[in-house]
């Protein structure tokens, strides 16, 4: 009997979370250690799942299937392939580093970690789902805890508003997608929610063209597609650090991934028909997001909008419907996930000490927090697509894919690289270099060991993928092949 690795990965967080609720509220230390243990287990298992994936065999591996509601053809069906294995790993990494970064949370850490872990289970569940009902099930579980996490532990100024806006936006998107999913289920006649059954269902062209926007855009809301992206910057900024890391680093990928799995893979004709629109909107994401980021004065908003821009690249990659673009998008999900987790971790560290995020009021941080500064610079270089880092490895195939499908988009999107370079260097210069303002001098405590470990892990991954793309690219490519086979492209 094989060890059900994926189920353990999926359910470990929520199990730990539920057990956590039984801890006495004051035992902060034990709570944190227990949470870290859970995160570690998830990380190790996700690493295992990632590295034991055999590309030679391909297809879905570590598959488990149990009957759930047989009357309706719903089963609990999980598996990893080239597209979701990196995302599972990403979740493990972000969860682990997020717990490390959250060591300092003093207000009800028990509830914090409990809700965070429920979120993590939802995320893991979506990534490995091979059953449509199951995907929706875990998707909603992944969205809801955001409300509490942001409203309770977030930035006092905007947290209530941002939390409600975020949650309502995401839910509207997901329920619209659910309606689409149900339509697919009934139209297929297969009486099964299994993604395989639905892939082979042979929906009519009109059906696909009608339902694709509902499903794709419903999920892509969480991916941050223009014009339904504006829950994201407020949500990012209002959230506490680890939640921002999760939100931008992982959750937005859940949206994009679900859009791929359910929208593109199940309704390929619809995808082809609507691709120009999606390309157009995603281009707006990329350029507009970068532009808006460059005029922000709040450090965290810069990062928030840069996420909107980079997720635009992911969606662009998907919309090319060719091997390069989809491969690039898959790598970009991983690379951007790690990068933005790093960014938000850094922002959190600066804010915790300076109690302001206004860029004009910051400066000279690299002298007192050199590791943090270097980590941010590395993240910045990734963000600019600098070769030698994972951002380049991800963005390059996306652009190649764009050349093959819509060259104009490639050229327009490329401008965002320059804009990004501009604002990233500006932010680095103003926040980390230069002179530290008087009122901050002497108040900046150094970061603790856990923070350092988290930064090193995240930076290291960005570098590793950058210099050795083989560690991820072939895997993602094999996953992209599966997508292509369904879409019928090349």
């Amino acid at each position, binding site marked *: 009997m094989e060890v059900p690795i994926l189920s353990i990965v999926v359910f470990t967080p929520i199990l730990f979370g539920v057990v956590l609720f039984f801890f006495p509220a004051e035992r902060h230390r034990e709570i944190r250690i227990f949470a870290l243990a859970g995160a570690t287990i998830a990380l190790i298992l996700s690493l295992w799942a990632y590295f034991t994936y055999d590309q030679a065999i391909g297809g879905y591996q570590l598959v488990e299937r149990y009957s*759930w509601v047989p009357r309706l053809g719903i089963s609990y069906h999980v598996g990893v392939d080239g597209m979701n294995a990196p995302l599972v790993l990403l979740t493990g990494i972000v969860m682990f580093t997020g717990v490390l970064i959250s060591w300092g949370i003093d207000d009800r850490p028990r509830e914090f970690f409990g809700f965070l872990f429920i979120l993590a289970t939802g995320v893991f569940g979506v990534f490995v789902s091979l059953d449509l009902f199951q995907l929706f099930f875990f998707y*909603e579980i992944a969205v*809801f805890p955001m409300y509490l996490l942001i*409203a309770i532990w977030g930035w006092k100024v905007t947290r209530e508003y941002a*939390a409600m806006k975020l949650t309502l936006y995401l*839910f509207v998107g997901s329920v619209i997608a659910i309606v689409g999913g*149900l339509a697919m289920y009934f139209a297929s006649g297969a009486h099964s929610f299994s993604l395989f059954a639905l892939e082979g269902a042979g929906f009519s062209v009109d059906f696909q063209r009608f339902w694709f926007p509902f499903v794709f855009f419903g999920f892509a809301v969480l991916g941050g597609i223009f014009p339904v992206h504006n829950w994201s910057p407020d949500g990012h900024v209002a959230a506490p650090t680890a939640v921002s890391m999760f939100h931008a680093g992982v959750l937005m990928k859940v949206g994009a991934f679900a859009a791929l799995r359910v929208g593109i893979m199940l309704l390929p004709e619809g995808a082809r028909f609507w691709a120009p629109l999606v390309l157009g909107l995603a281009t707006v994401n990329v350029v507009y997001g970068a532009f808006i980021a460059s005029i922000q004065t709040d450090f965290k908003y810069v990062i928030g909008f840069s996420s909107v821009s980079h997720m635009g690249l992911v969606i662009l990659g998907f919309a090319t419907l060719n091997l390069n673009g989809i491969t690039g998008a898959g790598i970009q999900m991983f690379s951007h996930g790690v990068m933005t987790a790093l960014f938000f971790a850094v922002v959190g560290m600066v804010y915790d000490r300076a109690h302001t995020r206004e860029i004009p009021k910051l400066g000279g941080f690299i002298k007192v927090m050199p590791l943090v500064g270097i980590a941010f610079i590395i993240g910045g270089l990734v963000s600019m697509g600098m070769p030698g880092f994972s951002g380049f490895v991800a963005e390059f195939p996306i652009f190649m894919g764009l050349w093959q499908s819509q060259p104009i988009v490639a050229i327009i999107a490329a401008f965002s690289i320059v804009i990004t370079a501009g604002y990233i260097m500006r932010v680095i210069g103003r926040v980390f270099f230069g002179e530290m303002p008087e009122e901050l001098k002497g108040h900046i405590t150094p970061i603790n060991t856990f923070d350092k470990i988290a930064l090193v892990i995240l930076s290291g991954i960005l570098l590793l993928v950058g210099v050795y793309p083989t560690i991820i690219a072939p895997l993602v490519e094999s996953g992209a092949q599966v997508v292509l086979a369904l879409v019928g492209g090349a």
Partner: protein
Amino acid sequence: MSIASFEPTTLLTVLPEILLLALAGIILVVDLASQRSRGLLLAWLTALGLTGILIIALLYGQPGENDVLIFGGMLRHDWTAFAFRVLFLFAAAMTALLSIDVEGVADRGEYYALLIVATLGMSLMASSADMIMLFLAIETTSIPLYILAGFMKGDDKSTESGLKYFLFGALTSAVMLYGFSLLYGFSGDTNIYRLSEAMRAGAVSPWLIGGMAVLVLVGFSFKISAAPFQFWAPDVYEGAPTPITSFISTASKAAGFAVLLRFMLAVFPAIEAEWVTLLAIIATATMTVGNVLAIPQTNIKRLLAYSSIAHAGYAMIGLVALSSFGTATVIFYLIGYVVTNITAFAVVILFARSAGSDEIVDYAGLSRRSPGLALVLLVALLSLGGMPPLAGFVAKFYVFAAAIESGWIWLAFVGVLNAIIGLYYYMTILKVVYLYRSEDENKPITIPRSYALVLMICVIAILAIGTLSAPWLDWSVNSALSLF
């Protein structure tokens, strides 16, 4: 559907009802016999008694292969009746436990007796196959509930609640009865299952049939608090003793649905398309009115009242789907909804015991006062909102699936968007509970054993229905089959 001749074994089919009657009597006797009021004893006795009857009903009350009409066609012994009966018994047992220590009601034997009688009436409602039986059952349910709503004599709101409930109920009952009488007039038969044939034979104009349906619907809509007959609910819910609110919002509503399902599907197949459209409109109005009006509420009982109205709307969508699966989803929805709503009201009762308030603002800091209770409230509200892995999610999912299967896409969209509105106000309550601080944070909330038992059972049920769902879906499907 043969009318079986009377055999002693038929009594077994109504064993639960008989036992209920006996239990009511026992309660009254115990109340008289005991020296001083023994609230605790009575409550536990009721609860245990009801549980016992529930077990017996589960074991012996299952219908056989065919659905039979018994007692001269008065009742129908089928899965629908069975499923609903179990539901009512469960709800009543929980209500009994929740009534312990509630001021003004707990130590009165009549309270529990009335509760049991109302349950008896509901059980009959679910199995009635004859219009006269149906009317009797409805009244048997309603009159005790009117009294129970106004039970707290000294409380103005309670009295108002009881009176309003009574007046409104009596009015709508009268209209419904008129509809029944017309039906009898045009068909010459009181048996529900023969009505439709008789009417066809008599070539009754569809307009007339429609008119009769509308009249009948008035009564049913009142019972399930559907628009436009929903506006008794907030006042009644707010004023009644909270355990009764819980009971009315769950069991009574479910009973109304049982009747609605059985009656509409059996009596009016001739104008199916028309009443289904009408119901779709009613469902839309109900959901929207319920959700939108819930938003500005400051009293949690009123908010839950409006939320209950909305839920009636969601459940109706399944009936609009007009399919066996659709009807099954209605029943499943009710199962999930009953368990969830009881949980929510249980928390309200517990909080009111310690804090003496039903205002939402006073719930601030509940998560620090009693993290466990806050969590239970979280589970209940999320289930009402339709979040996995809780019962509400699958319930809504199935209902919307049924709508889409039958082609009611726009209704499904209306439903999902309404669900979002619902989430908004549920989340706002949770925000108050988890985020806002108050000076009373350090005063703990006592949770007596009986309440803890209820909470535990209900939370486990919510989770079980939400994650496993298959067993209950099977029940619902079987029940639906017997209605089709």
